[in-house]
């Protein structure tokens, strides 16, 4: 793997550095580079263009902040997201004005939906030309406004450093999210003295950290009365680094726990108390437990419609506790009984303390009965599939990958059936290892996300589980992966269909497969080779394990594995749109 920090060729600029040290004032571009250094940013994902050339020049002249050159700005943002989701540090993106910014929008919207800490810098035309329909001008602040946590247009070089500080502060505190900073080209040439604020306070922004003590006591009262409790935790636990405390809390209470798609890994999947994922493609036991719960503890989860199904039928008997840092997430889709606004970590700590101070424990007989019921639901074995099939079953590929990587790999995915199978069959025992696009469901996310993840974790196994349709949406990034020698393992579960679309058409459109068949697929082996990687095509179930072993052993090569899988396979269970959580389609 090549460290992007050493990618800028040296020489030729040393003279300028000396000249600049003598001036007290820095250019906006130099200030930009200094700010990123102050923030401890090691990697920027980006793509140059006219309006950011001063900035690229300033980055060229230093070697603290590295730069990763992608092949499309959408991929820069997804890569930064992979970096952020796998490290809990903010991802940083730099793109040019106009098309650079518009290409980045899908990535920004994706990061917004999944609450990913990220700062995106966009170039802008010079201030004197703004509003003139200048070359490569778009209203970036206007276009991105609905899909960012906040955005800024810098109008004076004197504001640049403070704005960058604010951007990082906003992106990483409270409910994390992407912040866009739009910088006109003249600002990057203007000069002013550099001063980077040490800390940031804003009168208009004060996110709550600790939970209200009275609410925490009420929550604990309710927990101790529970007879059929369920913990439903989500991406907030991963984002907030709360997974250790969540595990402690869940074990102390001996409650069953389910995770959302975004929350996987926050509680060890191999643990007996774990019921698997819930929701549309959640397990039978998780959804049934939700439906029959009398007390529901939602932690860092946002009652998404893919989770609740029909809200009118959602958890009909449950009193609900909801811990979330964003008050607007609480009682948005489902009215809750005990809201607790705060970060998962301090709130869980306080709840644990309160619990330990109490003598009382939940009714042991009731809990035993509840677990017995859950074990009966579990016995349905809702994730079963035909293990004798002559065709490769996608589930088997993921189970084998899990076994061969000891469940310890970083897994990114695209969007579709393969994503659901990855979620169901790669039991994540650790947080920040499952990197996928949940809220926006963006095909094309997987490969660039794997690039960002691998760059953040050199030496670790990073696998991208994808479909033959999704992978084609950002396939150009195979070139980026070669440039930085990233040994990503791409597992394409090739069913020659937009499988998720085909499944809906089979279930709800009487098998009219409109436009969901992927014709004219490229030869992925040759394609991978053309990009300088290793390609493999695997067609028989018996070859799956051997091929995976071989690929995983190639520690310094990207291996593109084209698994020809059973095209008729569907994702089960499934809660059809509009149904209650207990109304699942099973195999």
């Amino acid at each position: 793997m090549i460290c992007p920090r050493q990618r800028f060729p040296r020489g030729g600029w040393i003279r300028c550095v000396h000249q600049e040290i003598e001036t007290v004032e820095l250019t906006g571009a130099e200030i930009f580079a200094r700010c990123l250094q102050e923030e401890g940013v090691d990697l920027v994902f980006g793509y140059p263009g006219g309006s950011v050339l001063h900035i690229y020049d300033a980055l060229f002249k230093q070697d603290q902040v590295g730069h990763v050159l992608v092949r499309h700005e959408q991929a820069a943002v997804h890569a930064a997201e992979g970096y952020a989701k796998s490290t809990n540090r903010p991802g940083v993106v730099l793109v040019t004005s106009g098309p650079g910014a518009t290409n980045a929008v899908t990535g920004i919207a994706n990061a917004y939906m999944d609450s990913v800490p990220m700062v995106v810098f966009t170039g802008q035309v010079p201030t004197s030309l703004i509003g003139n329909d200048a070359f490569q001008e778009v209203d970036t602040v206007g276009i991105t406004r609905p899909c960012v946590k906040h955005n800024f247009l810098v109008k004076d070089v004197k504001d640049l450093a403070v704005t960058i500080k604010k951007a990082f502060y906003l992106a990483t505190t409270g409910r994390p999210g992407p912040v866009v900073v739009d910088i006109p080209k003249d600002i990057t040439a203007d000069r002013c003295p550099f001063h980077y604020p040490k800390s940031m306070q804003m009168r208009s922004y004060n996110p709550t950290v600790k939970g209200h003590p009275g609410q925490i006591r009420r929550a604990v009262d309710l927990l101790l009365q529970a007879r059929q409790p369920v913990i439903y935790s989500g991406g907030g636990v991963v984002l907030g680094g709360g997974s250790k405390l969540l595990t402690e809390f869940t074990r102390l209470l001996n409650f069953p726990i389910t995770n959302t798609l975004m929350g996987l890994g926050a509680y060890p999947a191999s643990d007996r108390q774990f019921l698997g994922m819930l929701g549309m493609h959640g397990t039978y036991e998780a959804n049934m437990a939700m439906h029959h719960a009398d007390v529901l503890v939602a932690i860092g989860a946002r009652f998404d419609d893919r989770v609740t199904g029909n809200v009118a039928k959602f958890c009909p008997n449950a009193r609900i506790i909801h811990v979330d840092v964003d008050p607007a997430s609480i009682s948005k889709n489902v009215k809750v009984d005990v809201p607790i606004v705060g970060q998962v970590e301090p709130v869980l700590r306080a709840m644990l303390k309160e619990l330990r101070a109490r003598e009382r424990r939940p009714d042991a007989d009731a809990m035993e009965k509840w677990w017995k019921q859950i074990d009966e639901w579990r016995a349905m074995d809702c994730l079963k599939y035909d293990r004798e099939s002559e065709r490769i079953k996608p589930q088997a590929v993921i189970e084998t990958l899990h076994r061969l990587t000891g469940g310890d790999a970083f897994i990114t995915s695209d969007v579709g059936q393969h994503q659901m199978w990855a979620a169901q069959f790669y039991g994540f025992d650790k947080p920040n290892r499952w990197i996928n696009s949940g809220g926006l469901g963006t095909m094309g996310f997987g490969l660039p996300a794997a690039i960002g993840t691998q760059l953040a974790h050199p030496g670790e196994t990073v696998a991208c589980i994808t479909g033959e349709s999704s992978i084609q949406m950002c396939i150009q990034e195979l070139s980026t992966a070669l440039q930085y020698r990233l040994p990503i393992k791409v597992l394409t579960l090739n069913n020659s269909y937009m499988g998720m679309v085909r499944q809906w058409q089979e279930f709800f459109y009487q098998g009219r497969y409109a436009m969901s068949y992927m014709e004219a697929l490229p030869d992925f082996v040759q394609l991978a080779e053309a990009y300088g990687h290793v390609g493999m095509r695997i067609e028989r179930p018996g070859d799956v394990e051997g091929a995976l072993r071989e690929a995983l052993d190639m520690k310094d090569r990207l291996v593109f594995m084209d698994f020809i899988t059973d095209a008729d396979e569907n994702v089960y269970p499934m809660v059809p749109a509009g149904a209650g959580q207990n109304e699942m389609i099973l195999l």
Partner: protein
Amino acid sequence: MRHIISILMENESGALSRVAGLFSARGYNIESLTVAPTEDPTLSRLTLVTRGSEEVVEQITKQLNKLVDVVKLLDLTEHRHIEREIAMMKVRVAGGEDRAEVMRMAEIFRGRIIDVSSDTYVVELTGDSAKLDAFIEAMRPFDVVEVVRSGVMGIARGDVALRL
């Protein structure tokens, strides 16, 4: 229910579009919106009138509070408060009879005539929205050229205040 919400926000360019954008993106109703800088030039005060169920209005206030530029917010509907709106109406007054009649109507509604030309009057009127509605209705028989309304602003009675 109808709610009148007052907001103090950073007087930044684009702040208003964040509020307007929030309402359109989330499908909330907005009946009126007024905004102007306050005595502290770094702050704007914005007043909006919206309608929705209690749950929707709760979401609206939460989403408004979540906007980074919003410093403070007060749902005036939760307090005793005063609402005012201003209207200006241009009426064509052909003959002496019309002139006298328009002046009489303005007086009844405690309005003022603030511009006079050879064949038009401009009447200014302040009050709550219902009073303005009533005036506009009462003026129907005349030849009304145009009406402009400011949108509602409000302030809480007594000790309650929206300030930093």
